[in-house]
């Protein structure tokens, strides 16, 4: 899920988007606008939870500047499913999800438009994806294997449809960030299907991680959009699982460069746990992110900051 933090950074990264321009664009969208300080703090702090007003305004601006390549009707259907899935009071939720799934499967077979096919399979993948923790935590291994494989198949079909669409020169190509997201979901299926304690030894995860070139793709994405701290955090996670010291340091520095708060392994960014709490990060914490290493990074950053201050003076 793209956070308000990421959207503010992506908007700000555009040429000509000074803070004055940013605030003017916000004022065009809403009479009430946003308090300047609130905007800055959401730009700085990955843990900040936005209020509804800010979220709505930033989403609106982001959608105007970076239009979604998929049809609005299917995006809304996806939003509807997300609300249905997260609703705790909905009686007969699983039955309704099954009905929706039935409709989507039929619809995906009828469609000709590649982007619509891609989005329908993406949503079908999401439905299977969301069942994984339930089957895993209840030890329902046959159902777990089935829904994991179906989720992967749907996401793979979604990727293939986007790639086929991008081969038509007459049509506007879908950006690499969408392909990255779909591939990220495939890797997440492999990871989430395995209980935390066994992840570092799971051959399926390690094999897919190497075959998919996920680490290199994550680095590429971070070079273009360094504010994507969730990508850096996942890069750190997988580098730790495959016990790669160089990559652990690379992704950790990516996090720290974005916010010094990540120097504390107890720091909890929005909707995510602390690195110190995640079992997937154990190898990195024990072997790379030691207190001595963290102290040396802190000193290096301070020296860098002092150097910049001297240059200014």
């Amino acid at each position: 899920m793209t956070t308000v933090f990421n959207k503010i950074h992506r908007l700000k990264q555009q040429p000509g988007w000074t803070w004055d321009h940013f605030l003017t664009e916000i004022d065009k969208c809403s009479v009430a606008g946003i308090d300047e300080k609130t905007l800055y703090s959401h730009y700085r702090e990955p843990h900040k939870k936005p209020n509804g007003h800010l979220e709505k305004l930033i989403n609106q601006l982001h959608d105007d500047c970076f239009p979604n390549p998929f049809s609005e009707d299917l995006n809304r259907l996806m939003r509807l499913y997300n609300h249905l899935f997260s609703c705790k009071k909905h009686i007969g939720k699983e039955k309704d999800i099954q009905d929706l799934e039935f409709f989507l499967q039929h619809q995906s077979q009828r469609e000709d438009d590649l982007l619509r096919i891609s989005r329908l399979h993406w949503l079908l993948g999401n439905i299977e994806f969301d069942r994984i923790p339930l089957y895993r935590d209840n030890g329902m291994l046959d159902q777990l294997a089935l829904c994991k494989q179906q989720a992967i198949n749907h996401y793979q079909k979604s990727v293939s449809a986007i790639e086929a669409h991008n081969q038509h020169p007459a049509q506007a190509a879908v950006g690499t960030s969408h392909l990255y997201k779909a591939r990220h979901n495939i890797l997440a299926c492999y990871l989430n299907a395995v209980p935390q304690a066994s992840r570092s030894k799971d051959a399926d995860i390690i094999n897919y991680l190497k075959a998919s070139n996920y680490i290199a793709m994550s680095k590429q994405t971070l070079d273009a959009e360094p504010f994507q701290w969730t990508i850096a955090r996942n890069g750190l996670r997988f580098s730790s699982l495959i016990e790669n010291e160089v990559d652990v340091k690379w992704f950790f520095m990516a996090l720290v460069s974005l916010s010094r708060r990540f120097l504390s392994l107890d720091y909890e960014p929005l909707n995510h746990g602390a690195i110190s709490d995640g079992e997937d990060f154990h190898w990195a914490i024990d072997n790379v992110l030691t207190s001595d290493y963290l102290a040396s990074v802190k000193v290096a950053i301070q020296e860098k900051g002092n150097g910049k201050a001297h240059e200014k003076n």
Partner: protein
Amino acid sequence: MVRRMRKIRSLVLLSMISIVLLIGGCATAPDVDERERISSPEPSTQSIGVSEPDDLKAEKLQARELLLEDSESEVGSDGAASSVDGVHEKLERQSDDMERLD
């Protein structure tokens, strides 16, 4: 003598009832007056459309830079993040699963 005893007994009974009522009343009384529960609106800064002098603009720019940089000073000596702003939300999590992206 009996009259006196009855009087004393009824007095004791009355005082006991009033104590019980008093305790009951305290327990059910609201903590805060509803009218006091009015939240203050978030201040908003709106440009007023009047051109600013150059030194004022420079001051504003400096203040903005300070606002953007002050996050670094908020990190404590041990590197721990402060959560005084009250927006550091903790969600209940079963495990550190990867979230799906839409």
